[in-house]
């Protein structure tokens, strides 16, 4: 592994309080030097980063890599490759695969596949309950022993208040958070989009905000009861973030994430029965988007996570009710955040880097998110001013289900390093996937 010198970029490392134009030296998989006028080690590759931001590799706490079970729509290899193309060097894989990641062997399989892929680091999330059926708790100790960093029944909420209580208490032994997908199924049953004027006009059964809010309220109360750490996945409503703000003010161990699509879009994106705007939780209304952005700015929300959810083009080529929930997000997250949040002046660039690196790493206690000397050499170099147009056909992900196709975005990844090796360079093209014809 030859050393790398990333020269003359704007190094933003919130963990070290660094924001300056300087050089970054990577050697032996670690950050070997950071500062102005660093020398060039023998045989080093020099990357000119003038005009670019050099940041800790991004950390995504919420991705669906579909392997094992749906390798036709994504694999750990293609998902991890998509991650580094988007600047993410660590991703946390949700356990709702087939079979469910509810035992140490399943965790070990994901770790092994990720090692073979040799791009992004993949951290498995184990299931809270066996088969995510909401009945018997899975063996958190063995899951963590094999490499899991959190537990979740994502795709579904932790089924009962009792199970959530027990999971929060039991997880304390291992120091891991319980991640919840907050949705009361009795309120969301049959729903396919946000309940509001648009769903009324389209004749689509709505999912009210309260379907999310009542479970957020439950989880916060149980975090208070247990002293456990609950992490709320993909918050979508003004009510959710209001409750999280209150919980944090009271000192509870509650953390929260939001997705780029919930920060950028409203239910208007579903007009015309656009199945690429169908996800769960659904896109809400402008006041929710405003509340999520405010919560991001004031620190209520801990991080941006993509909820990258690949689906086959056939599955989305259906009537709205019949299409599956979910959108891909790894390769558009940075561009959406820069375009929607930083360019309008809502969020400073260092704050965005923080929300994508140090803060998510801290939520799951991952050794990532800093460029301090000696840290793992996981780095993203991006041009914050370059513009590009989202072309799903050029994705490294096997799937194309994005609501942002055709959008012009500002902010483009120049290169990504994991463990001191460059794993993505701008201009790389994905190998042809055997996904068949597309519309």
């Amino acid at each position, binding site marked *: 592994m030859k050393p790398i010198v990333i020269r003359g970029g704007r190094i933003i490392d919130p963990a070290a309080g660094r924001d300056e134009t300087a050089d970054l030296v990577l050697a032996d998989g670690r950050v070997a030097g950071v500062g102005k006028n660093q020398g060039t080690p023998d045989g080093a590759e020099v990357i000119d980063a003038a005009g670019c931001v050099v940041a800790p590799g991004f950390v995504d706490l919420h991705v669906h890599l579909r392997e094992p079970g749906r390798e036709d729509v994504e694999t750990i290899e293609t998902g991890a490759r998509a991650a580094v193309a988007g600047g993410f060097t660590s991703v946390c894989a949700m356990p709702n695969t087939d079979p469910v990641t509810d035992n140490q062997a399943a965790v070990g399989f994901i770790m092994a596949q990720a090692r073979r892929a040799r791009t992004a680091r993949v951290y498995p999330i184990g299931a809270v309950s066996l088969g995510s059926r909401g009945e018997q708790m899975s063996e958190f100790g063995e899951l963590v022993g094999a490499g899991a960093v959190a537990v979740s029944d994502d795709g579904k909420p932790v089924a009962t208040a009792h199970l959530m209580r027990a999971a929060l208490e039991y997880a304390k032994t291992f120091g891991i958070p319980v991640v919840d997908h907050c949705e009361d199924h009795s309120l969301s049953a049959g729903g396919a989009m946000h*309940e509001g*004027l648009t769903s*009324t006009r*389209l004749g*689509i059964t709505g999912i*009210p905000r309260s379907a999310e809010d009542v479970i957020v309220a439950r989880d916060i109360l149980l975090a208070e009861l247990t002293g456990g750490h609950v992490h709320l996945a993909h918050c979508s409503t003004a009510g959710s973030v209001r409750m999280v703000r209150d919980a944090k003010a009271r000192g509870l161990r509650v953390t929260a994430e939001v997705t780029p699509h919930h920060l950028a879009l409203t239910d208007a994106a579903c007009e*015309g029965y656009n199945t690429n705007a169908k996800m769960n939780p659904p896109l809400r209304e402008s006041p929710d988007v405003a509340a999520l952005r405010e919560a991001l700015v004031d620190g209520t929300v801990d991080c941006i996570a993509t909820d990258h959810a690949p689906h086959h083009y056939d599955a989305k080529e*259906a*009537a709205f009710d019949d299409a599956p929930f979910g959108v891909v997000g790894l390769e558009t997250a940075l561009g959406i955040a820069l375009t929607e949040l930083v360019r309008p002046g809502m969020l400073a660039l260092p704050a965005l880097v923080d929300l994508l690196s140090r803060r998510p790493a801290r939520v799951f206690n991952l050794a990532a998110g800093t460029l301090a000397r000696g840290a793992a050499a996981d780095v993203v170099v991006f041009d914050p001013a370059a513009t590009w147009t989202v072309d799903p056909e050029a994705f490294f992900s096997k799937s194309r289900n994005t609501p942002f196709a055709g959008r012009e975005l500002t902010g483009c990844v120049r290169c990504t390093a994991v463990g001191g090796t460059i794993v993505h360079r701008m201009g790389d093209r994905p190998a042809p996937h055997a996904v068949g014809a597309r519309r």
Partner: protein
Amino acid sequence: MSPTPSAALGKDLLGLEFLSADVIRLLLDTAEPFKEVSERAIKKVPALRGKTIVNLFFEASTRTRISFEFAEKRLSADTVNVASTGSSVAKGETLVDTAKNLEAMRIDMVVIRHGSSGAARFLAERIESNVINAGDGKHEHPTQGLLDLLTIRDHRPIQGTKVCVVGDVLHSRVARSNIWGLLKLGAEVAVCGPMSLMPAGIGDLGVRVFRRVEEAIEWADVLNVLRLQLERMQAGYIPSLREYYRVFGVTQERLAHAPRELLILHPGPMNRGVEIDSRVADGPHSVILNQVTNGVAVRMAVLYLLAGGRPELAEAAKGGGAGSGERAA
């Protein structure tokens, strides 16, 4: 191969939401001459001779399917009926494959009824044939909306008339098509029913909302009484059919308090003694069977115009003169 769409109407009829008042009036006016065809001994005109139409019904329907079929046959089209049971649809074929296969058979028009909102539009965007929405989920049922408009117009000018749609508005495509059509033609529109069966933001569409049917009766000139699906009780939206009738039923006793004579519409099929009293349904102010008659004429007008027929030639078309029903230039 695909018929030239009528310039005013476009290729398809998917809903009334995005039609202009002028186009809706054109459809109603075109239906007028076709009413007479059904009154003849020989109920057939050659306007759609040589056209092939597929009636694709993914949901059970008696009235709408038969009405479309009569409209097609009375215009001399060749028709094929496909029901979901027993067809390739029941064997798991996707909607897009069904569409592509129909297209490959070089058909001219598709009439589609489907349980998913947006299904008609989905089909229309993927095939060149004209698509007519015969009801998609909870979205729209435009020909029902048109026949309701025509029936009201037979009795009074729509402009300024107060129409209240009563019942399960939440699950009703008929309600949505009525609301759009009536608002565009200048009616005042209200809805009334249990709040557990009212969709979110309904008031923002520009309609009044009444919580009690007595208030609706006091306000309205026309009541359009929706069918209450019996499964709504099991789904927990209302406690019982008995109580529904007691609180929301359109009864003779309630109508006796109306300050003016009300016109009573119902899209059918009726649950007598649930949403409507038999004496009201069979009474002098009920135009429920006129709706059914008008349904055939409205559907003839829709088919004729989508196939490229000129509105001004509809009168001639029904006479069966040479050159009738030709495509618009």
